[in-house]
């Protein structure tokens, strides 16, 4: 069975941190093939982000280290996909809960 293929994180970072630099640093982590950082919340001092990372055997500890070293805080891991392929969840299953 393969390693981590996708991880979706809810992250808060200080607003003086560059999201471009953060994305570039995350892109260099072992196993990462693509990074999507979307700002969901803006404040004077804090940016709320959703970070989606996809790849092949993503080094999650490396990802966590980069985010924390940049002064960010991982609030929650909203989705993790592990295996030979990316298994998408049926939205109907979420709605029915």
């Amino acid at each position, binding site marked *: 069975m393969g390693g981590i293929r996708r991880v979706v994180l809810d992250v808060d970072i*200080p607003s003086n941190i560059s999201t471009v630099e953060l994305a570039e640093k995350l892109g260099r982590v072992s196993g990462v093939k693509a990074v999507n950082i979307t700002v969901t919340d803006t404040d004077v001092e*804090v940016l709320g982000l959703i970070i989606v990372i996809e790849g092949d055997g993503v080094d999650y500890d490396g990802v966590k280290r980069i985010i924390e070293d940049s002064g960010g805080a991982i609030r929650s891991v909203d989705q993790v996909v592990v295996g030979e392929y990316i298994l998408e969840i049926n939205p109907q299953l979420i709605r029915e809960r």
Partner: protein
Amino acid sequence: MAFIEGRYLVLGFLDSVLTTLILGETILNGIRLVIIVTVINLVTAFMAEYIEERASLRHIERTLLMKSGTLLRTSLHKRAIYDALIEGFVFGVVSFIGSSITALSMSIKVLWIPVIPISILGVFGTLMSRYFRGNAILWFALYMILGITASFIGHILSGF
């Protein structure tokens, strides 16, 4: 790259010239005086800036609900130290220039007033007033009065 605050350029020059004017009459070795003024200003500027940066990090920690000291292990803290070092260095260099010019030209006087440093202070005041669109003549006079007062204090202290 660190953004160099304008206030450090003003503070560095003004502080060093006034300190040299006051102490120059009692510490007759010009080189020693310049080194003292430069080192003190460099260290104090670094500490002042570093404390500000640490306070800012602490504020971020509280905003992000982090434990105190969490950000000290991050690149943000390294950046804070680097920025404080740059500001301290700029302050030190400007202090060195201001103190050197003053020490080298203090011997040319009218009464107790070293003419060249006082004139340079006046010009500096005029340049500063342009920065915030103030009255150039007023700031020229103000800086000269500051310099004359400082040199008078130095003159009085040298008599003790």
